[in-house]
Every structure is written in structure tokens, then in C-alpha cells.
């Protein structure tokens, strides 16, 4: 079973979702929670069976799909993808558990389970096309979630979300086809296997173009400035659960893909584009933080804050050293937890008041002290308070990028200032002051069910902030192998100097050889 | 010389006839001009030694097709003046003239291609019809048969479309109405 655990992780929720159609609507939530819990347990099992000291892919599966065209169903996890998979199943679980009364609950839960399939698939796929399949497929449930359960602009938002991402990923697909073609030219056989692609050393000009093609797909997903405008709409209109999963997992697909594809495949291009991308990332950090500050809707604040944080993740990724990349991966998880929690929190108040405008609130700390406390905790995590999960990631990301550019890091570092500004301002507007709005006087504090979702997140937030090692170590191992691979593959002098040499080459070669067969 | 005179004469006549066909407002004139043009075309066939074609041109076109059109014209009662609203004449004539000029520009120049081998050369001493028959029933047997199918299709199609069947919509009628209609039809046939 362990040999196929990834396939089970991917397809178990999908099969369960199919079965879900026949389950009576009164029992569907229990069913959903049970399935998601099993899925989560499976993902934990994956973690426990995972050899943290190894750097290569584990639990690999390889089934021919269209061998004539080099498409194979290849799965595998390493330290980079492992935790995002776990995070995904975790969020699906608490997302379903904390669902508040929604119409068509059954459809929602079935959709969420499908979404879980695609999320697990994206992060476990080691074949370009299989990756692409899940990547695109993940849009569909999200489209439905936003479009069917969203706010007044839901259709616009969902269609925008879908088309924008879809467009970007089609460009990426062309890039993948080129990659496969180059592989074909080099070896005489088609292959879409990522580990095969790792072995290709492309001329720099090719790298630049391909990097650009992949970049568009990923950048829109992340979303990077100036491709980010779908995100506020999507978040603004999505129901709570949609925002949570969107922010926590779906956005990570883009940054994950940068690390999985762009960096190891195009090391020279990565170095070439490092500064332009860093500049974009800094714009993301500062500009979107300012935009967040100007928002009137608390959910939009969190939405824009996501963009801002994604900027740091990008920056860490393009630090191109172990510290930065490890940090960015950790920050992906951290941001997943924190922004997921923040969206859940926004959902809590939205359920009570059916508005998200900050001007409607004020003084909530009086009426909902527990809520205010948890919100405060997440806020502090969001602004990167040490000993919370976010800090580790942000610190490492910035630390890593500092090696590449001092000035840009200084600019990016303003994240901790501007982040504090909009977050504190929002918190002040909502929680501080006197309760002025009559409607807020008798709001109930967070319920047990809501706590069920929020408390684990709070615990994770602090636990991983204090003791990130269990996650950091496996990530570190895998990142080291990627960095080494990049160093070995790079052809320009600039890249050779920018990407550190860790002298662990032999091990990497072995891994990619395993992957090829 | 005779050939040249004949060519130009018939070329002139055909052109004029066809021009009348497409421009006149009198449907009857158009029909007549078309028929005349067809007959003049058959002249070319004779000139070019395609006697069989000349014959069937007259028979099929001037005979059958024209008869059909004439019937149609009567049916549609288009013997009157045809009122046609035409917007931009320039588009119509302009486009056509451009087309003509363009092609003529090319066709005016002789072809320089060589290597043309007659696949089915004219056979010395055989009549055109015989020659044609020879090729038609060997090489072109299949197209010939398919053409037969095509004619069958056309026939069936013509019958289906023009026949009584399409007058009623069985889609929109209910069962009782259909039975009534059938009885009605039956009576008429009897």
C-alpha cells in the first residue's frame, strides 16, 4: 500500500466524492469529514514513512500513460512537496469540518473532495503533463465554489479567476511541449518526466524563452504583480472555504512550480531573471501592502496581504541558495496556515453579520474576546512575529536573498513595516474602540465548531514557529539537492557564482537517474 | 481562320447571353438568354471536337435543366419583373471585374509547363463518343456509378422536398392529426 500511497492520496477523495453523490444530504457532512480525516491520516502516514534524511524523490510510481508521446503517470514526493500535500489534506479536513450552513452542502463537499484530489495531484506529479492535468483541473472545482456560493460579483470573479489562470497555464503548456521536444531532440525519445527534464542542459537563449513561458503560467497563479488582479475578486467573492483553500493551497501551486520547474530546469535563466523578478516581488510586497491598507473590506485586506506575502516567497525562491529556497518553501506552508486561518476568521464574522466592511465593526474585542485573541494571534503571525510560523519563512527568505542583493532585500524587508501598518490598522478598525454599531452588541463569540478549526491552526502557528525543525530538515535536504543540481547544470559564469556549490553532486545524479527509469 | 472567327463569334454571343442572364430584370429574358448561352457553349464543344459533350450539353442543359427551370419559374410565378434591391453595385461588379482581371493577367501568359502526358489520349479513328465511352467505362467506371448514386440522391431529394410530405410538419402535429392527414392524402391519391 505504501508503494501506491500517493495514488491513493490522489484518487481516494475523488472516488469518495463520486460516492458522495448517493449519500443523503443530512449525512453528507459527516461523510465529508470522515473522508477528509482519512485523507489527512493518510498524508500523515506518508510523512511518518517519509525518510527525512534522503533528498531525492520517494514513493515514486511510474505507469505508462501515453508512452508513445512520453507521457507517463509518474508520482513522487520529496521534502518540498510533502508538506504542502499534508497541508492540503489538513485544510480540506478542517474546511469541511468548519463549514457553516451552506445551501447545497452536498455539492460543496463533493466539490471540495474533488479539489483535494487535484491539489494532491499537483504536488505529487512528477510528469509535466500529469502536473498540468491536475493544475488545470484544480480550477474547475474552485470555479464552481466561487461561482456558486460567492458574493454578488461571484460570476465575474470566478470567470476571471478561471480564464486568467487558464490563459497563463496554456502558455506554460506550450513551454512544456518545447521542453519535451528538446528532450526528444537530445535523446530521440519523448518524455515529459520532470526528472528527465532536469538532466537537459539547454543553451541560455532557449532557457530564457522557456523560462518566460513557464513564468507566465506560474506568475498568474501566484499571483505576481501585475497579474494579481484576479485574486482580490476571487477572494472577495468566494465563500470562506473557497478563500481558505485558495489562499492556503492553490496559490502555492505557482510558487511550488517555480521551485519544481523553473529553477532546476533553467538555472541560467533563473539567474538572468533574478533581478527583474525580484523587483516585481518587491512591488508585490510594498505596493500590494499599500493597496491592502487602503481597503475597506477586511477580506480584501487579507487577500492583498496574501499577494504581499507571496512576494516574499518569490523573493526567497529567487535567492537561489539553500537558505532562501528553504525559507520560501517554509513560508508557503506558513502562509498557508496563517492566511487560511485569517480567512476562516473573516468567515466567522461574515457568518454573523453578512458583511465584511470594516466600517461596520469596531470594538469587537469587547463582545468577542476569544475571537479577537485568535485573530490577534494570526495577525501577529501574519506580520511575522518571531516564534510564529511566518517568521521562520520570512526570515530565511530575506536572509537568503540578502546574499544576492542588499538593497533589494532592504526594500523587501519593508514588508515587516508595511505589513504591520495595514494589519494593525485593520485590527484597530475592527476590534478596538467602543462598540458603536447596535448590531454588534450581541454577537456570539466563536462557537465550538469554529474553534475546532481555529485551535489546531493556532497550535500549528506557534508550534512550528518555535520548533520548525521537523519540517525544515526534509525541506532543507531536498533544496540542497536542487541547488546543487542548478549549480552543476548552469553554464554561465554568472550563474555559477550566484548559485552556491554544495558539493553533493554525486547524490543528485543518482536521484535523477532513478527518476529516468 | 474559320476557327478564330467561330471562336470570337461564339465567345461574343455567349458572353452577351450570360451577361444578359445576370443583369436583366426580366426573368423570362434571363431564362432565354441562359438557354441560348448554353447552346452557344455546345458550339465550342463541337469546335473542340467534343461532339458527345456538345450533344449532351444541348440535351441535358437546354433540354432538361432549362425545362426544369422553366417549370420552376412558372411555379414561382417569376415571369413578372424581378424586383431586386441591390445595395452597392460597386462591390458586385468591382469584385467580379477584379477577379476577371487578375485571372486574365495570369492566363494571358502562356503556360511554360512541359512534361504533360495525355493519360487518356484521343484514339485515332474512333469517334469521340466511342473514345469517351471507352474511358468512362474503364477508368471512370466508379465515378460514373457514383454519379448514378448522386442522381438517385438528387431524385430522392427532389421528391422528398418538393413532394407533399413537407407541407405538413409531423414534428408539430399530434398523433390524431397525423392520422387524419394521412387519410386525407390517401383519398387524394385515390
Amino acid at each position, binding site marked *: 500500500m505504501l508503494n501506491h500511497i500517493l495514488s491513493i492520496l490522489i484518487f481516494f477523495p475523488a472516488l469518495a466524492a463520486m460516492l458522495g453523490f448517493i449519500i443523503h444530504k443530512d449525512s453528507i457532512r459527516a461523510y465529508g469529514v470522515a473522508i477528509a480525516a482519512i485523507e489527512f491520516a493518510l498524508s500523515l502516514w506518508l510523512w511518518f514513512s517519509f525518510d527525512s534524511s534522503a533528498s531525492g524523490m520517494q514513493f515514486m510510481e511510474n505507469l505508462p500513460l501515453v508512452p508513445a508521446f512520453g507521457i507517463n503517470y509518474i508520482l513522487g514526493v520529496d521534502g518540498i512537496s510533502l508538506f504542502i500535500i499534508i497541508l492540503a489534506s489538513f485544510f480540506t479536513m478542517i474546511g469541511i469540518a468548519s463549514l457553516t450552513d451552506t445551501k447545497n452542502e452536498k455539492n460543496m463537499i463533493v466539490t471540495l473532495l474533488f479539489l483535494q484530489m487535484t491539489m494532491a495531484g499537483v504536488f505529487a506529479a512528477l510528469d509535466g503533463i500529469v502536473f498540468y492535468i491536475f493544475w488545470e483541473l484544480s480550477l474547475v472545482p474552485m470555479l464552481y465554489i466561487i461561482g456558486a456560493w460567492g458574493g454578488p460579483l461571484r460570476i465575474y470573479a470566478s470567470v476571471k479567476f478561471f480564464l486568467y489562470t487558464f490563459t497563463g497555464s496554456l502558455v506554460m503548456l506550450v513551454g512544456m511541449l518545447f521542453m519535451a521536444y528538446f528532450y526528444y531532440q537530445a535523446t530521440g525519445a519523448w518524455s515529459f518526466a520532470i526528472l528527465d527534464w532536469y538532466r537537459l542542459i539547454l543553451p541560455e537563449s532557449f532557457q530564457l524563452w522557456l523560462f518566460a513561458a513557464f513564468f507566465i503560467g506560474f506568475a498568474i497563479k501566484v499571483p505576481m504583480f501585475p497579474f494579481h488582479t484576479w485574486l482580490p475578486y476571487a477572494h472577495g467573492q468566494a465563500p470562506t472555504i473557497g478563500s481558505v483553500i485558495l489562499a492556503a493551497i492553490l496559490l502555492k501551486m505557482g510558487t511550488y512550480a517555480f521551485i519544481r520547474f523553473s529553477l532546476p530546469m533553467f538555472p541560467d535563466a533563473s539567474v538572468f531573471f533574478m533581478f527583474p523578478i525580484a523587483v516585481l516581488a518587491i512591488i508585490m510586497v510594498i505596493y500590494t501592502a499599500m493597496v491592502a491598507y487602503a481597503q475597506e473590506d477586511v477580506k480584501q485586506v487579507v487577500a492583498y496581504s496574501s499577494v504581499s506575502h507571496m512576494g516574499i516567497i518569490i523573493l526567497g525562491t529567487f535567492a537561489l541558495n539553500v537558505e532562501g529556497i528553504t525559507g520560501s518553501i517554509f513560508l508557503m506552508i506558513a502562509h498557508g496556515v496563517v492566511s487560511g486561518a485569517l480567512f476562516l476568521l473573516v468567515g466567522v464574522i461574515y457568518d454573523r453579520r453578512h458583511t465584511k466592511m470594516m466600517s461596520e465593526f469596531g470594538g469587537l474585542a469587547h463582545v468577542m474576546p476569544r475571537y479577537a485573541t485568535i485573530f490577534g494571534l494570526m495577525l501577529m503571525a501574519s506580520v511575522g512575529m518571531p516564534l510564529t510560523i511566518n517568521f521562520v519563512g520570512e526570515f530565511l527568505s530575506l536572509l537568503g536573498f540578502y546574499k544576492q542583493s542588499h538593497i533589494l532585500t532592504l526594500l523587501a524587508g519593508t514588508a515587516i513595516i508595511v505589513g504591520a501598518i495595514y494589519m494593525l490598522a485593520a485590527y484597530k478598525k475592527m476590534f478596538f474602540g467602543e462598540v458603536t454599531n447596535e448590531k454588534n452588541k450581541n454577537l456570539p463569540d466563536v462557537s465550538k465548531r469554529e474553534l475546532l478549526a481555529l485551535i489546531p491552526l493556532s497550535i500549528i502557528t506557534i508550534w512550528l514557529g518555535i*520548533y520548525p525543525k521537523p519540517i525544515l530538515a526534509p525541506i532543507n535536504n531536498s533544496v540542497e539537492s536542487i541547488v546543487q543540481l542548478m549549480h552543476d547544470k548552469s553554464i554561465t559564469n554568472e550563474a555559477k557564482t550566484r548559485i552556491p556549490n554544495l558539493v553533493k553532486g554525486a547524490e543528485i545524479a543518482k536521484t535523477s537517474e532513478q527518476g529516468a527509469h | 481562320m474559320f476557327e478564330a472567327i467561330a471562336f470570337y463569334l461564339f465567345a461574343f454571343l455567349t458572353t452577351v447571353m450570360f451577361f444578359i442572364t445576370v443583369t436583366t430584370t426580366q426573368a423570362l429574358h434571363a431564362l432565354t438568354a441562359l438557354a441560348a448561352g448554353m447552346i452557344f457553349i455546345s458550339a465550342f464543344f463541337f469546335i473542340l471536337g467534343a461532339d458527345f459533350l456538345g450533344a449532351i450539353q444541348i440535351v441535358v442543359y437546354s433540354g432538361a435543366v432549362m425545362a426544369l427551370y422553366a417549370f420552376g419559374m412558372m411555379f414561382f410565378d417569376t415571369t413578372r419583373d424581378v424586383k431586386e434591391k441591390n445595395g452597392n453595385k460597386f462591390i458586385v461588379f468591382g469584385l467580379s471585374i477584379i477577379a476577371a482581371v*487578375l485571372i486574365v493577367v495570369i492566363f494571358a501568359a502562356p503556360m511554360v509547363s512541359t512534361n504533360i502526358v495525355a493519360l487518356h489520349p484521343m484514339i485515332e479513328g474512333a469517334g469521340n463518343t466511342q473514345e469517351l465511352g471507352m474511358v468512362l467505362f474503364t477508368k471512370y467506371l466508379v465515378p460514373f456509378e457514383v454519379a448514378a448514386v448522386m442522381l438517385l440522391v438528387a431524385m430522392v431529394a427532389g421528391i422528398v422536398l418538393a413532394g407533399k410530405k413537407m407541407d405538413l410538419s409531423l414534428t408539430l402535429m399530434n398523433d390524431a392529426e397525423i392520422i387524419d392527414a394521412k387519410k386525407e392524402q390517401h383519398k387524394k391519391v385515390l
Partner: protein
Amino acid sequence: MELYLYLALFSPLAGSLFAGLFGASPRTKIAGVVPSLLLLLSFVSSTVLLIYILSGGEKVHVEMMTWMATGDLYIPFGFIVDQVSVTMMMVVTLVSTVVHFYSIGYMDHDKGFNRFFSYLSAFVFSMMILVMSDNFAGLFIGWEGVGLCSWLLIGFWYHKESATWAANEAFIMNRIADLGMLIGIFLVYWNTGSLQYDQVFATVGSLDKEVLTWMGIFLFIGAMGKSAQFPLHTWLADAMEGPTPVSALIHAATMVTAGVYLVVRANPLYDLIPNVGLFIASLGAFVALFAASMALVNRDMKRIIAYSTLSQLGYMFVAAGLGAYWVALFHLMAHAFFKALLFLGAGNVMHAMHNELDPFKMGGLRKVMKGTFIMMTLASVALAGIYPFAGFFSKDLILEVGFVENHYIIYTVLLFTAGLTAFYSFRLVALIFHGEERYKLFGIHPHEAYKFMLVAMSPLLLLAIIAGSFKMTYFEMVTAVLPATEYHVHSAIAYWIMTIGTQLFVILAIAFAYKKYANNKVKVPDGTSKMENNLCYKTLSNQYYIPYIYEEYLVKPYRELSSVFWKQVDMKVVDATVDGIAGIIYAGGEKTRVMQSGNLSTMLKWMVAGTIGLLSFAVVFGLAVRYSGEIKIILSGLGV
């Protein structure tokens, strides 16, 4: 000893969590008492450690566990108790124990009693981490932790707009500095490959001067924020919105001195870059004067004390910047005692006056608040630096340092500031406790604070009086890790002239203050007097218009720019571009769909037109190919 270390470190955390358990429940004494007792435990442990260190024990260095490790980076949770940190631990635990006990009384009637103790203990925990950490990252944890607690505590009365505003201001301003700190840490890491103090300081010597300078600057920027040095000073005065015990603990005794602690801790670094040190000293001197001047005219009791704190921090930086680290640390300690005392006294007054802060509305309180009166007066004396109180030893030492190091301008400034300090301190005392009982005009019935609060304050009083006598013991202890420079004016005569001169100057200033404010003629100012309309007075009372400038030229533009970014740039440019592309495509469809008019004739025309289009292209192409030879000749004839 490790046990004591952990006890000292974690008992505040335990206290905080314990009080936090009662966070949502109604006020209960136990939520205050238990943390206080736990803090007492922490204090006792610290004392044990102090005695251990004093008795010549080795540094206690523990590594609890790994925090972050990736690549070459390795950051543990490591703690060190050496001479410097034990000093800080003593100060922190002592003052906070006092403040805790005091708060049990002070916060007695507050709804958020439990919450308060939770925050307060959390603060102490953070502060302990800050001072005990053995690496920069740990320092940063504490650094941010105290910032967080400061935010929580300033904004403790979150229903007050001003309080929450001040809290946010403090947090954000500190964050600006923290960025500098962070960059400094990055610099340290990438240049030395480690963040452990011992490893870092072992390698700084071999580094490039320029790198070291930058390191020093960035770390000091961090210190500037925490210690509220110009231009990041405005938050400190505003932070007085918090409960008074908080001001005493955080904004006088402990947190604000963290900057000084950082510079002291990083002394091997700063020793190598005297230019930066001089800058620090100059800035310190400037702030000392600058803050004192604002205190002169202020009409808010707590703000006056806050400016005084600021001013004293300036003194400390002067010492630290000039390399007299032990002096800075000594003044830090002494200052903590008397300033905390002053604040707590002010808290008593506030309680008595029903949160009235304007000393002009008080007067004559010595009759009803004898204990407080005595304590505050003595604390002010200590602050003014009158022999033999603690301030004399520490502050005069700094003046001497300035003098000995030949920085006469700094010396002069500090001397002058000492006079100002005495003046505003006693202006405050005089206004509060002497003269007419102006409060009666406002119908207030003051009363003395609980006995046990006064008792709780008494250790501070004691220390404020006698701390100076520990000078030599202290010197011997800390110089084990800090540069052991003794500062003595070369000639004994000069020394005496200076000392006595200073004392006289200060006493004169006190006398002047008393003369002006301790009489019955003092009126509640109504903004009409000549003095109040004086430009100088206005500038000072408006804090040199700096808050105004910040508001007008930083905050507002930021807010407006944000709004522009959102409404103009994001919505109208970035998003509109995306929507515009979609819109153009869609409009293209709407516009061109007329092509499909449904009219057969049009359709046929399109078909013919398409063919003609192709034909034209074909003919052009065909002719070009056919006559390519000729075309080439013509073109070459044209000289193309």
C-alpha cells in the same frame, strides 16, 4: 545553575499562561497574585545566578534546542548568563516583580485585570529572552516579543482611540527600526557565518571596516527604535496612554533600554568602529537635550517623565557610544530603579486624581499622599543626580566620560541637560505636591494608594537611594566581559570643581523650579499667558512640531498614496488593462458580428471577396516570382 536559568526564564511565561487562562473570565485576584509570585521566583533565581556570577562562577551557557537550521545557517535557542545579562536580568526581574505587585493594587478595579497580568508577564518573558539569548536571532525574538507586548499593553484600554493609536504607532515605528536590525543580522550572518555572539565577535576583527560600519549602523538603527532615539522617538511619549505600571516597567525601566543593551552587548563590534560610536554618542547627547527641552513645558505628568526617560536614554547612549559600556549599563540599572519609582508614584497620583494628568490641576497633594510624595521627591532627587543618590554616581560618571574622552561639546550639552533635568523634575514635584490645592476646583477627592502598593514600591526606593554604592562591585563584575576602562578626570581639583559645580548647578535648577512652581500663585494655564504664546514655548509644547510633520508628511501621504494605488493604479490601470483586453476582444466580436448579417447575398459576397483577396495576393506573388529577375534588375538600378 541551569535550573535557575530556566526558572528565571520560564516562570514569567508560566505566569503569563496562567493569567491567560483566566483571560476571558471575570477579574480574579489569583490571576494577579500567581504571576507576581512566579516573577518573584524568577527574581530569586536571577539573584542566585547573580550571586553565582559575583562569586566568580563561570558563565552559564545552555543550548535548549535547535530553532532554525538550514544550509549553513544554524540557530539554536541558546541562553547565556554572564555578567552583562545577569545585570539586565536583575533589573528586569526586580522592577517587574515590584510592578507586578504594585499592579495588583493599581489594576484592582479594571475589567481587564487578568488579561493585564498575562500581558505583563509575557512582556517579562520576552525581555528575559532578549537579555539572555546567546545569539542575535534570539535577541530578535525577544526584541519583537517586547514590541508585541508593548503594543498589547499600550493599547490595553483598547476602547480608547488614543490608546490604540499610540499602540499602533509604537509598534510600527519599532518595526521600522527592526528592519534595520534585521538587515544588520543578515549582514552579520553573511559575513561571519553565524549569529552566535561568541562566534560573531570572535570573527569581527578580521572583517572589512566598511562591512563593520554598515553592521554597526544597521544594528544601531534597531536600537534607535526600541530606545526611541531621534527621529523615532515620538512613540514613547504617546505610549503613555498605557496603564502606568506598564509605563514604569516597559517604557522606563526595561524595554526602552534594550537598545542600550544591544550596543553594550555588541561592544566588540562597536569598539572597532569608533566613528559610529561617536555618532551614537552625539545622537545620544542631542536626544538628551532635545527630550529634556520638551519636558520643560509639558503639561502631562506621564509625558514629562517619559521625556525624562528619553533624555536619560540619551545619556546612556553617550556612554555606550564613547566606549564606556559599563557606565552605560550602570546608568541603565540606576535609572531603571528611580524612573520606575517615579512612574509608580505618578500612578498613585493618577489614581488619586481619577486619571487626571495635568499637574497644573493638582497641587498640594503632599498633605493627602505623604508616602507617594516622599517617594517621588526622592526619585526626582535621584534623577537629578544629587549626592548620594543613585543618579549621582551613574550620571556624573557619564559626564566624566564625555570630559575624559575630550568630547567637550557633548560634555557641555550633558551638563546643561542635567540642569534641565533637575528643573523639570522638580517643576513636576512642585506642581503636584506643593502650592495651592487646585484640584478642588475640579471636585476631586484624592486619597493615598493602598499600603501594599507603597510597600511594593519600597525596594525601588531603597535602590534608588543606595544603588550608587554598588558601583565598584558592579564595575569589577561586568568588566569581566566589558572593556574595563576607568574614567577619572586627571587632576583631583578639576574633578572636584566639576562635581561640585554640577551639584550646584543642579541644586540651583531645583531651587528655581521650586520658586516658580511651589507657590500659591500658580494658576491653571488657559493658553492666554504671555509665556504660552512665546514661539519657543509653542515649539516645545508641540514637540518641535515633529508629530505634526510625521502626520502631515508621512502618514497622510502614505494613506493617500495607498488609496491612489488601490483606486487609481490597481483598479484603473492594472485591472482595467486586463479587463480591457477582454473587453476589446468581446467588443471586437460585437462589432464584427454584423458580418454575419444572415443575408445570403452578403454571405456569397464574402465568399467571393475572400477568393478575390487570395487571388490578388496570389497574383502579386506569382508575378513577383515570375519577374523576379527583372525586379532585381530594377531594384539594383534604383540603388536599393
